[in-house]
C-alpha cells in the first residue's frame, strides 16, 4: 500500500483544523473553561520556559500563534507559541495579575497601577489607557484571624486582578475600586460603571446581554450589558469576625441559563441566570472555592483551597460525580481539553487528570518546588502548614506566604494548544510542556 495518499490525507485534515484560539480568560465570554485543543495524556518534556521578572499568576491566552500574558514584573508579554521567543513587551506601572483579552488586533488588560490598557497586538504600542479609581487588595480588620485584630490587613491571597471580557465594541472588567466598568473598545471611553461595595477581582462573564460577576462585598451581580443597570443580586456568606468566609474571588461560568460560581464562603453556587434564584449549592466545610468552574457536557469541574479537593459534579443537580484528594490548595481554574482536565496547584505542581475518573494522569513539578526551600512542603508534597504558618503576627504571616509562593505555585489557568500546555508560575516562568 502506498503511504503517500494517507500522509496527504492526514496533512489535509491537519490543515483543515482551525488554528487554536483562546483569546480571553476561560476561553470565551461565557467562561466555560473548555479548550479547543487536546491535552497530552502523558508528560514528555518541557518544550521551553520563558522567564519574567516577577510571579506569573496571569493565564496565557492565544491568538494566531502568539501567546499573550502578564507578569507581576509589570509587563505584558507577547511570545511566539512555537519557539518561546519574545515578540514584544509593554511595561505598565504595576504587577499585571490579570489575564489579557485579545480582539480586533488589540490586547486588553489591567494592571495594579490602576490603569486599564489597550495595546496593539503586533507591536505592543499603546492604543489607549483608562484610569480606574485605583487598585487595592481585599482587606479586613484582623483578616483571617491575624493580629493585630483591630488593624486593617490586606489579603495575601487576593492574587488576581479582574480579567476583561470583550463582546462587540465593549470591554468589561472589574476593579479594586469596587466598580465594574464597560469601555468602548476603540476609544477607551466609559459606557457605564456599576458600583459594588468592595473589591471586584473576579472576572465578569457575559451571556445573553448580561454581565455576571461577584464582588468581595458578598454579593453576586447580574448587570445589563448595554445600560449597566442591575438586573438582580445574590447574597453569599458573610464573616464579620475574620473576613475569611466572604467574597466572590471565583469567576463565573454561564451555560444553558445557569450561572456557576465559587465563593469564599466555601460554596459552589448554581444560580438561575435570569432571576438569580439559587438552584443548588455545595458546601465544602469552610474551604474556599477560588477556582472558576469549567463546564462541559453537563458537568462542572472545580477544586477547593485548603481542603485540596478536585471535584466533578452534575451541572443540573449538583450531585457529586468525582472527588479526588489533591496535595495542595488549588486557586488555578481548571481547563477541560479533550479527555483531560488540567489544573495548577499551590505546591508548584500542574496536574493532568482523566476527565472521566479524575485519576491523576501526570504531574509536572517546578524546579523550585523540587528544591523545597524553607521546607514549605512536606516530603509528600503537601503543605507543611505546621511549620510554614507557625505565626500569627501579620508581618511574619506575610513572610510565610512569600516563602510559600517562592516554590513556584501555579495559580495560572492552563492553556492547551497544538498538543502543548502553557501556564505561568510564581517562580516567574511561563512554561510550555508537552
Amino acid at each position, binding site marked *: 500500500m502506498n503511504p503517500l495518499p494517507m500522509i496527504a490525507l492526514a496533512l489535509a485534515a491537519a490543515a483543515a483544523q482551525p488554528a487554536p484560539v483562546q483569546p480571553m480568560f476561560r476561553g470565551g465570554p461565557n467562561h466555560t473553561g473548555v479548550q479547543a485543543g487536546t491535552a497530552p495524556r502523558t508528560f514528555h518534556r518541557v518544550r521551553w520556559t520563558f522567564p519574567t521578572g516577577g510571579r506569573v499568576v496571569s493565564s496565557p491566552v492565544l491568538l494566531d500563534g502568539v501567546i499573550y500574558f502578564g507578569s507581576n514584573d509589570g509587563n505584558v508579554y507577547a511570545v511566539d507559541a512555537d519557539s518561546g521567543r519574545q515578540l514584544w513587551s509593554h511595561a505598565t506601572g504595576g504587577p499585571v495579575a490579570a489575564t489579557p483579552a485579545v480582539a480586533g488586533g488589540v490586547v486588553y488588560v489591567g494592571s495594579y497601577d490602576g490603569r486599564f490598557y489597550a495595546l496593539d497586538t503586533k507591536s505592543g504600542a499603546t492604543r489607549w489607557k483608562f484610569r480606574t479609581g485605583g487598585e487595592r487588595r481585599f482587606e479586613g480588620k484582623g483578616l483571617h484571624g491575624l493580629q493585630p485584630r483591630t488593624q486593617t490587613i490586606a489579603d495575601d491571597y487576593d492574587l488576581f486582578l479582574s480579567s476583561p471580557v470583550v463582546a462587540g465594541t465593549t470591554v468589561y472588567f472589574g476593579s479594586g475600586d469596587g466598580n465594574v466598568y464597560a469601555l468602548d473598545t476603540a476609544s477607551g471611553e466609559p459606557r457605564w460603571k456599576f458600583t459594588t461595595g468592595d473589591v471586584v477581582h473576579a472576572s465578569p462573564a457575559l451571556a445573553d446581554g448580561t454581565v455576571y460577576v461577584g464582588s468581595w462585598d458578598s454579593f453576586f451581580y447580574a448587570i445589563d450589558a448595554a445600560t449597566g443597570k442591575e438586573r438582580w443580586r445574590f447574597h453569599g*456568606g458573610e464573616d464579620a*469576625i475574620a473576613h475569611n468566609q466572604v467574597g466572590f474571588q471565583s469567576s463565573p461560568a454561564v451555560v444553558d441559563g445557569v450561572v456557576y460560581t465559587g465563593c469564599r464562603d466555601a460554596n459552589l453556587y448554581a444560580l438561575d441566570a435570569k432571576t438569580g434564584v439559587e438552584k443548588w449549592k455545595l458546601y465544602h466545610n469552610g474551604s474556599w472555592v477560588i477556582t472558576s468552574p469549567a463546564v462541559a457536557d453537563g458537568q462542572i469541574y472545580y477544586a477547593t483551597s485548603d481542603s485540596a479537593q478536585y471535584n466533578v459534579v452534575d451541572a443540573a443537580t449538583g450531585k457529586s460525580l468525582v472527588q479526588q484528594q489533591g496535595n495542595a490548595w488549588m486557586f488555578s481554574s481548571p481547563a477541560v481539553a479533550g479527555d483531560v482536565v488540567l489544573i495548577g496547584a499551590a505546591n508548584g505542581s500542574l496536574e493532568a487528570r482523566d476527565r472521566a475518573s479524575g485519576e491523576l494522569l501526570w504531574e509536572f513539578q517546578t524546579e523550585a518546588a523540587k528544591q523545597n*526551600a*524553607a521546607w514549605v512542603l*512536606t*516530603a509528600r508534597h503537601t503543605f507543611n*502548614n505546621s511549620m510554614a504558618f507557625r505565626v500569627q503576627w501579620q508581618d511574619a504571616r506575610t513572610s510565610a506566604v512569600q516563602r510559600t509562593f517562592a516554590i513556584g505555585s501555579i495559580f495560572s489557568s492552563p492553556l492547551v494548544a497544538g498538543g502543548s500546555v502553557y501556564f505561568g508560575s510564581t517562580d516567574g516562568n511561563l512554561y510550555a510542556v508537552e
Partner: protein
Amino acid sequence: MRFLTAIAVFVLCEVAANAAPSPAGRWQGIVQIPGLPLHATIDLDQDRSGAWIGSIIVPELAIKNIALTGIALHVDTLTFAIKGVLAEQGEPPAAFEARLDSSDTMSGTFTQAGNHAPFALRRIGMAQVDLPARNTPVAKPMEGKWVGEYELAGYPRQVTVTFTNHGNDPASVEFVIVGKKVNNLPVDVVQRDGDFVRIESHEFGINWEGHLRGGELAGTYEQGPVELPLVLKRPQGESK
C-alpha cells in the same frame, strides 16, 4: 606487675574515653533548613527522679519554651522530640537525633514532616528548662462531659469537653471541636482555681477558660486574637 598496671591503666582510660558526656545544659546552634536556618536554643536537664526534661526556643517559628518529649540517651546518642508543635495531627513529632561529639558539642539530624536537615549545637551554659505549668485536678462538680457551640468564620463548631480526675494527680481532659473536621485537641494545660478552670491546647493555639456557675461553665474561647463567649452545658439528659 608492671604488665597488670598497664592493663589497669588501659582499661581505666578506655572507660573514661567511653563514658558519654552528660547532655545537661543550655545548647545553642543552627538547624540548616535550606533557605530557612533555624536558631535553636535547647535546654536539657534531669529532674529529681533522674528523668530527662527539656525545652526548646526557635524564634523563627515563634517557638518559646516548648517542652521536649521522649528524651533518651544511649551511650553518646541523644534523641528527643518537640511536644505539641511542628506536627499535624496524627503525624510523628518533629525530632532530633544527635551524637554528642565532645563534652560541649553535639550534631545530628532534625526531622520534620518527612524532611531531614543537619544541625550542630554548642553547650553555652547551665540548663534553664522552662517547666510546663503545673496541672491540677478539677473541682468535683466539673467532672464529666460538657458541650457547647460557637460560630467562627461563618459556620458553627460543636465543642465537647470531658474532665476526668485521677485523685490528686492532674485531671485529664478530652477537648473535641467539630467544624471542618473532627479535631481532638491535645490538652497541655488544665488548671483549676476555685470555680475557675482553664484549658490550653498549644498545638492548635486554642484555649478555653470559664467559671462554674449555676450548673454551667460560662467562659471564653480563645484562638489567637479571636475571643468568643462559649458556655458549656451538660449534654441533654445528663446531669454529669
